[in-house]
C-alpha cells in the first residue's frame, strides 16, 4: 500500500467543512507521523500500519463524538503508544532495530557529498541511540513538526521540561556528531 490515499472515508463533516480538508489533514500529518515512528526504530511497514491504525482510531473517535481539539496531538499520542508496543514486539522478534539505508536519500548529490552525508547520518544514528528515551521522543516529535506544548501533551510532561530536554538532546548530538 502506498499510503497516499485515505484508507477509509473520515467522518469529518463536523470537524472539517468538506472532505478536502480531511484529505489535507491526512496528507499533512502522514509524513510527520511516519518520520516520528521511523525515528523511534519501527520498520517502514510497521510505521505505515501504525499510521493507518491511528487514522482508523481517529475515525472511531470522531464518530463516537470525541473531542475535536488538537487532533494533531491526539494522533501523535496514539501512534506514540502504538509505537512502544510494536517496538517491544519487534525487539523480541528480531533482537535489535535495523539501520536505515542512507543510499535512499543521497539521490541528486555528487559522490563526494553523498559520502559525507552518509557519514554524518551514520554518526547521528549512533549518537541518537545514546540518548535517553525522553530525549529521543522529544527530538523526534519536534522533527515531526510539533510545538513544545503539543509534545508535552503527547508525553504527559511539562512544556518547560520539553524545552530543556530538546535543548540537551540537540547539544549532545552536535557534540557527538562534531558538526
Amino acid at each position, binding site marked *: 500500500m502506498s499510503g497516499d490515499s485515505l484508507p477509509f472515508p473520515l467522518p469529518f463533516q463536523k470537524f472539517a467543512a468538506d472532505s478536502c480538508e480531511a484529505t489535507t489533514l491526512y496528507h499533512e500529518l502522514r509524513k510527520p507521523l511516519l518520520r516520528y515512528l521511523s525515528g523511534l526504530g519501527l520498520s517502514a511497514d510497521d510505521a505505515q500500519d501504525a499510521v493507518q491504525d491511528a487514522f482508523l482510531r481517529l475515525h472511531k473517535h470522531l464518530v463516537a463524538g470525541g473531542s475535536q481539539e488538537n487532533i494533531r496531538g491526539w494522533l501523535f499520542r496514539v501512534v506514540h503508544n502504538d509505537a512502544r508496543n510494536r517496538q517491544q514486539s519487534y525487539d523480541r522478534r528480531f533482537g535489535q532495530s535495523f539501520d536505515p539505508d542512507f543510499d535512499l*536519500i543521497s539521490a541528486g548529490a555528487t559522490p563526494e557529498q553523498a559520502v559525507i552525508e552518509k557519514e554524518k547520518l551514520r554518526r547521528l544514528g549512533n549518537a541518537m541511540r545514546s540518548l535517553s528515551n525522553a530525549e529521543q521522543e522529544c527530538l523526534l516529535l519536534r522533527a515531526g513538526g510539533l510545538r513544545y506544548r503539543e509534545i508535552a501533551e503527547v508525553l504527559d510532561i511539562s512544556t518547560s521540561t520539553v524545552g530543556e530536554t530538546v535543548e540537551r538532546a540537540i547539544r549532545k548530538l552536535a557534540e557527538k556528531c562534531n558538526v
Partner: protein
Amino acid sequence: MCDVSGKLVAWMDGELTENEAADVEQHVRDCSGCRNRVEAYGEVSRLVVTYCDAAAATRPRRKLPRWVPALAGAVALAALLVFIFRPTVVKPMPIVARAADRAPASVPEAGSTPIKVKAKTVHRRHEGVTRRNPNTDWAFADPAFQIVIPAEAMFAPGALPEGTFFRADLSMASDGSVQGLRLLQ
C-alpha cells in the same frame, strides 16, 4: 558558556516570548560562539529529519526469528531419529504346507511362495468338537512334515542295530512352532 546558550534551540523553534527572543537574537548577533552553535544545532535538526525519512523509506532485511533455527534443528533431529529407529514390521513365519504325497521332510526353497495351512487344520481344536482321544486325535489328520529320526538320537548307542531310524509326522501351529509329533509304525 553564555547565559542564553540554554535557550538557543527554543529560540530557533520560535518557542520563546517576544522579549526573550529579542535578547537571544541580540546575543547571537554579537557572539560568534553562539552563532556557531546555532549553525550546528540547525545542521543536527536537519540531519534528524533526514535520518527519520531514510528510516521510513528503508525496508529492513528481516532476520529470522530466533526460534526458527531451533525449530528446524529439532525437526531434522526428529526425522533422523525416526529414520534410524523406525519400527520394524515383524512378519509371521510362513507355515509350509504338508507335502501332498507325504514326501520326506524337506526345507522349502528360498523364494518359494509359502502356502498357509488350511484354516480347517489350524482351528480344528477350537471348534468345540469332543475329542475321543486327545493324544491321538490332534491335528495329525493333516500333518505338515514327515521327518526321519535316527535311533541314536533316541536310544543309547548299541541298544538298536545301527542304521535303524524312525519316521514321524510333524504338525505345525499357525505361528510356526511345532504343535505335535507322532511316530509312525
